[in-house]
């Protein structure tokens, strides 16, 4: 295992696009949460404890609709089942010698974007390091919590005077996912990528975005089982 400050710092730096992507979304969540009647402390608590973007926005809808806590919790849990694949997929790419001694801690930060960034780094030839994972995950987590707190504090309309800035920030995650996709794209991954894109499009348009995401991930992963 590589446990070093440079690896930790490299993780922090690699998190920059995630930080820039998370901050405005978390800001929006903070605004939406206070508009939904939550206090600033409750909004931040949701970001600290749940730490999953789409789930948190859904949590607001469930809470304001008066859904029982257990029903709301199980709905949120179902949304994030896809994350079970991320750790094993990352460790497979990291190779047999990769340490997972501190995975109980750094894996908490294994969101879609952190997973994509880490996988892309490995695909570009970087060695797996738990310190790097800590740096990457910590920066993203802090951006999420900080953005939520700022949004809850500022309230609505903070970016209304700067529509172009708001638009650019809104495009940040799309650009990040495209860059991450490019970083893992190769002849070998073309089929899973194409199947995932088609399945996600079909599922989203025919059913809902949540079903589209599930269809894309499962369809693409299953496409990897087919031999060329």
């Amino acid at each position: 295992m590589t446990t070093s400050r440079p690896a930790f710092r490299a993780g922090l730096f690699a998190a920059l696009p995630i930080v820039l992507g998370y901050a405005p979304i978390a800001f929006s969540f903070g605004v939406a949460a206070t508009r939904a009647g939550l206090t600033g402390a409750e909004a931040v608590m949701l970001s600290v404890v749940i730490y999953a973007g789409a789930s948190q926005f859904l949590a607001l809808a469930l809470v304001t609709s008066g859904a029982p806590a257990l029903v709301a919790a199980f709905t949120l849990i179902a949304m994030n089942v896809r994350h079970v694949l991320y750790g094993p997929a990352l460790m497979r790419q990291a190779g047999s010698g990769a340490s997972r001694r501190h995975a109980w801690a750094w894996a908490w930060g294994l969101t879609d974007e952190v997973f994509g960034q880490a996988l892309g780094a490995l695909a570009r030839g970087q060695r797996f390091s738990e310190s790097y994972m800590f740096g990457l995950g910590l920066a993203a987590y802090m951006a999420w919590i900080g953005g939520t707190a700022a949004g809850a504090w500022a309230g609505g309309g903070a970016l209304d005077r700067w529509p172009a800035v708001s638009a650019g920030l809104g495009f940040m995650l799309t650009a990040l996912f495209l860059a991450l996709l490019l970083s893992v794209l190769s002849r070998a991954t073309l089929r899973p990528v194409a199947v995932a894109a088609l399945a996600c499009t079909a599922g989203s348009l025919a059913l809902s975005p949540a079903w589209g995401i599930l269809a894309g991930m499962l369809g693409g992963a299953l496409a990897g089982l087919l031999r060329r």
Partner: protein
Amino acid sequence: MSGGLILMAVLAGAANWAFRALPTILMRREARPGGLAARFLAATGPAAMATLFVAALLPELAPAPKAPVPLLAGLAATVLAFLPRRSVVAATLSGALAYGLAFAVMSAG
């Protein structure tokens, strides 16, 4: 702070931790190279990235394109900035900057 809200958050957060950490911690052995599990896991990452990109892109396009010129500018800048050094940081920032600039130009025009 509402007790129901805390209960919901703790249950959802505990499940998120379990989904993210337990498969990594409990993975006792590597998948056999070339085996079904290895091929499935190898395809998971690219499939996830393609899915999340499409999921982020679709609301911009359907039911009707919202801002086609900024979108094209953002996508093109992301790809062009990625190619020289394969830098995710540079590509993401360039894409967002191009989108914002094109949005400003279109709004002014």
